[in-house]
């Protein structure tokens, strides 16, 4: 990616800053702090929520879609389950599927990008053209085609989102690696006979970490969006289970009488994507080193 290589060459390569220092300087920015705070808050809800939920998420506690049910803080959902308990239990699927799919996309994309940049021959062309073909599918559409074919099981969703994340990561990896591949220490490593996979992993990879960290947080943001959207469209592995995306769909029809069944999960997904977005932007700013002297965080 021409734009990325331009952006990275001046700062990242000349001042090789260790990742720890990068993250520390990112954490000095207000936006990163807010992002991390929000993320921790959502993680607390997702992980601790099921323990503190007052009801079983699948238990019927009152008349459907009503607000004045005793013991149900935010009322009941479209079939009479406790909205608050389902909200507390509904984040785990989205978050875990998104994390696994993003990790898969990152691993595949980084591998393809590194190999493409390092090979500098027809393999580079072939790999990147394959990436172009995958890029021709909007992420959610490829996931929908896969679901139409084999059904909405977790593996389908992870593979579809992971595979569509891959080409985007591969582009960034390749773009960032290209200038690194040309540097002398790579030639030196080749000269003393370091195996190729080691050159990729220990010579090139450490030098492209900061754009990859930014990319990782961006990809996670998108993966959460796609997976939550699939659930919102009604495609989840377990139709009756508590899931923020599905919750919005189920209670959407009763929005005028019982808004909480929609508002709580929408707010949670919004805060989650905003938090990863803020963290990504913080890392990007820290890696460009611009906000160190201006307090505009």
């Amino acid at each position: 990616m021409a734009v990325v290589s331009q952006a990275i060459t001046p700062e990242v390569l000349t001042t090789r800053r260790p990742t720890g220092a990068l993250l520390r300087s990112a954490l000095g920015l207000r936006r990163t702090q807010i992002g991390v705070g929000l993320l921790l808050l959502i993680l607390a809800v997702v992980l601790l929520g099921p323990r503190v939920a007052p009801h079983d998420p699948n238990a019927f506690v009152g008349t459907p879609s009503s607000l004045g049910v005793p013991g149900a803080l935010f009322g009941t959902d479209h079939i009479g389950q406790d909205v608050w308990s389902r909200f507390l239990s509904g984040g785990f699927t989205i978050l875990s599927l998104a994390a696994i799919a993003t990790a898969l996309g990152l691993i595949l994309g980084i591998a393809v990008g590194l190999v493409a940049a390092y090979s500098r021959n027809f393999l580079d062309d072939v790999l990147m053209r394959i990436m172009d073909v995958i890029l021709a599918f909007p992420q959610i559409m490829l996931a929908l085609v896969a679901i139409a074919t084999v059904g909405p099981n977790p593996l389908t969703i992870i593979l579809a989102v992971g595979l569509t994340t891959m080409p985007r990561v591969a582009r960034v990896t390749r773009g960032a690696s290209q200038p690194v591949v040309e540097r002398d220490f790579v030639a030196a490593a080749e000269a003393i006979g370091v195996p190729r996979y080691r050159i990729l992993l220990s010579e090139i990879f450490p030098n492209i970490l900061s754009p990859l960290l930014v990319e990782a947080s961006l990809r996670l943001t998108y993966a959460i969006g796609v997976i939550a959207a699939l659930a919102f469209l009604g495609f989840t592995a377990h139709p009756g289970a508590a899931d923020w995306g599905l919750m919005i769909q189920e209670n959407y029809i009763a929005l005028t009488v019982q808004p909480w069944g929609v508002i709580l999960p929408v707010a949670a997904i919004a805060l989650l994507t905003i938090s990863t977005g803020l963290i990504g932007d913080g890392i990007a700013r820290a890696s460009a080193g611009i906000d160190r002297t201006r307090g505009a965080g």
Partner: protein
Amino acid sequence: MATGPSGSPSATLQVEPLAGPVMLDRSGAAGGPARTGGIRMFILRRVLQGVLVLVLVSIVVFAATQALPGDPARAILGRGATPASLAALREQLHLNQPVVQQYLTWATGLLHGDAGRSLAAQEPVSKLLADRLVNTAFLLLLSGLISIPLSVALGAYAALWRDRPFDVVTSLLTLVLAALPEFVVGVALVVLFATTVFKILPAITLIPPGGRPWDQPVAMILPTLTLVIAVTPYVARIMRASMVEVLESDYVEMARLKGLSERLVLRRHALPNALGPTFQVIAINLAYLAGGVIVVEYIFNFAGIGGALRDAVANRDIPVVQALAMVIASLYVVLNLLADIGTILVTPRMRTKL
């Protein structure tokens, strides 16, 4: 200013998702000296590449039916299917032919505008989708016509008034909005303007069969607004970064020093140069809308191809899924193609490299 001219834009540019010149980096980065041949050859080459990508995409989409575990006909009809209905469906999907033959039959059919018959509606797919295609095209066009000038203006003014209140507020707002999935934006708008907080706009867009979306201006507001909010923040951020870089360039300083009015400096020197990189991002984000429209149409019950794709997936109506996947992928490829060609045309610097 703590850093050089490239400091601040790089931060934002790195963040862009599918943004970078998606196909442009071919000639330069694929290695070797740039091939010569001028703009015409470049366009021809790009069109051929686009066609190649579409052929590969069609193979992937077609393979979707082949990937059905076991017998596709049984997978579609379920366990209770009678042998007669299975045989009929196999006939209809051309499952009795060899795979390559099946693909060719389907692909040539598509080229002639014949996408097979819908399994759910038992009608030709093309007939089902014709009106919906018009509706979706109108929605996308309207969203594009609003979001492009809006995002360019927001980004340009933010750069011009860098670090002043307008810039700080838009930067923060675009950062937050850019992170939100479309359906979150859409549902939030419905809660705000149609149901819970205010009840001033319709929550669904009802287009009667045979009706046209432009006859329902009020009902178009929320779906259009959702798509505009989905695209504008991102493009505005890129435009700001690009404009900041241009405003710090030598030629803008030169233009100012030779006494041109600020208005002329902006219009003649800064804006055209800042638009180059932004153009690509605009087109890619419009292509991104092709995916976003699926969710947005579902929220507003909008009779378009996105909502149709969702229903077809739920019904496992494979011929319709295939046709819609091809339509959406084609839209995506064509917009990318236009982006590349447009970028070359608005960026004289790149023309010389051809």
